[in-house]
């Protein structure tokens, strides 16, 4: 596959933005896990 010149700065910024979005996704997933597990524990305590 042949290589080709590209706008390196734009590529780097785009890649950084995507990394940030993936990191936020991980943070939200963590919060959701905590919330759901907490809810199930609460249910178990109440029933």
């Amino acid at each position, binding site marked *: *596959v*042949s290589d080709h010149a590209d706008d390196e700065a734009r590529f780097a910024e785009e*890649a950084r933005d995507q990394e940030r979005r993936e*990191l936020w996704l991980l943070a939200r997933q963590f919060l*959701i896990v905590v919330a759901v597990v907490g809810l199930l524990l609460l*249910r178990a305590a109440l*029933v």
Partner: protein
Amino acid sequence: VEVLNWFLAALVFAGALPPATGCYQFVLAGLHRFRRGRRTIAPLHPKVAVVIPAWNEVAVLGRTLDHLLALEYPEDRLRVYVVDDASDDGTPELVRERAAQDSRVVHLRRENGGEGKAHTINHGLRQLYEEGWFEAVLIIDADVLLTPSALRLMTRHLADPEVGAVTAYIKEGSNPGNTVTRFVAFEYITAQAAARRAQNVLGVQACLAGGSQLIRRAALDDVGGEIDTSTLAEDTVTTFKVQLAGHRVVFEPFAIVWAEEPGTIDGLWKQRLRWGRGNVQVTRRFRKVWFRRWRGGRLGGVSFGLIWFSVTLMPVFMVLSSVGLITLLFIDRDFSVETFQTFWAVNLGTYLFITLSSFSIDPRAARRSLLQGLAFPGLVSLLVIAYATYPPLLDGLNIEEDSTVWWITILAVYSWLSASMLAAEVVHRLSRNPRLWWLTSPLLYLVGFGPLLCAITAAAYGKELRGAEMRWDKTEKTGKVEELV
């Protein structure tokens, strides 16, 4: 008796395996960031030949070509080959007109068509090999709209010599949509944005989305230079063969491709029946790969096997679960109540986790299909969850234990996982009735989209067991797809 009880409880919890595997995928999807960091991606613009199989696509093809020709990609490195499968609706005239306006568009014509999509693609691939120009091939459907950055985001993965193919994130873009298309829009968040991220983390992909798959020439060479024509799942077979040949297949979540999915239950049934039968065929064809890491590489991994079979065997798990619960009811009523409540508590957890995570992964698509996301398992299932979580809910009905009404209610609730598939089949039949079709949308919310997909998978088993003829039922497209931003 105790051993029997626990065996039956295990059967019941088999029904929780598919949603639990779904949760596992969402956990892996959250870790996608770390996987990305370890792989090579760099700006790269190989010579890409786009192959579009087209049979009577005049309603949609023009816009597809407009989007392709407007891609952020060097003009001298892109060619578009429309393989016209003996169309008679104006498609050839449309393509010839575009070819006259832009030299990157090439019209290929099959005079004797009707053999199906894979044969049409292969006609195009033979032409590509004759010309010898291409370094990668992008196979897309005639109705999809690529966002401007989609192709360059995909080709950057080819900077990693291990990567043989890349698939994009297909999103449902019917505008205006309806109940069915919005259910599909939500389903695609879980089946694509989440599941394929998870598969990236595992280092293996189940399927290059048929609507948009980029294959490196070397990888295509290694699978014989053509697409499989012996199954109804040519895209999945290509994906497996490319990986078994030693290449990696990756999903690019930021390469967005909009597609129009069926807007009727009957249309969806036909499309998914084809996919379901294709999956059964793939399962059989690659039977020596499953759970055999030494032979199948990552395809033979335990995680991937679990993910694959939790989808393809979902109807079996549902039936086993209902059978286990009802048998327990007759053997040990108290234990059955405990098992029922624990099972549905697990389902409550998986429902909340999968639904909230889907909203988190693609908030825009989720906003558009919020109701459908919440009602995905069906309102009846949500009521069962509510009852199992808080049994006093039914106290107000004053149903006397062991009365006929009590038995009917308890059997209906205990068997709902299986009965929901039959209910979905009834909804499908109603949707074909010209006088009762209006009932289908409210009934779909009640029964749920998940059970509908499960019912289609069960129907696919039936067709495969009977050895029914393999027909390529074309999904009708109207050209109502938009970039929904």
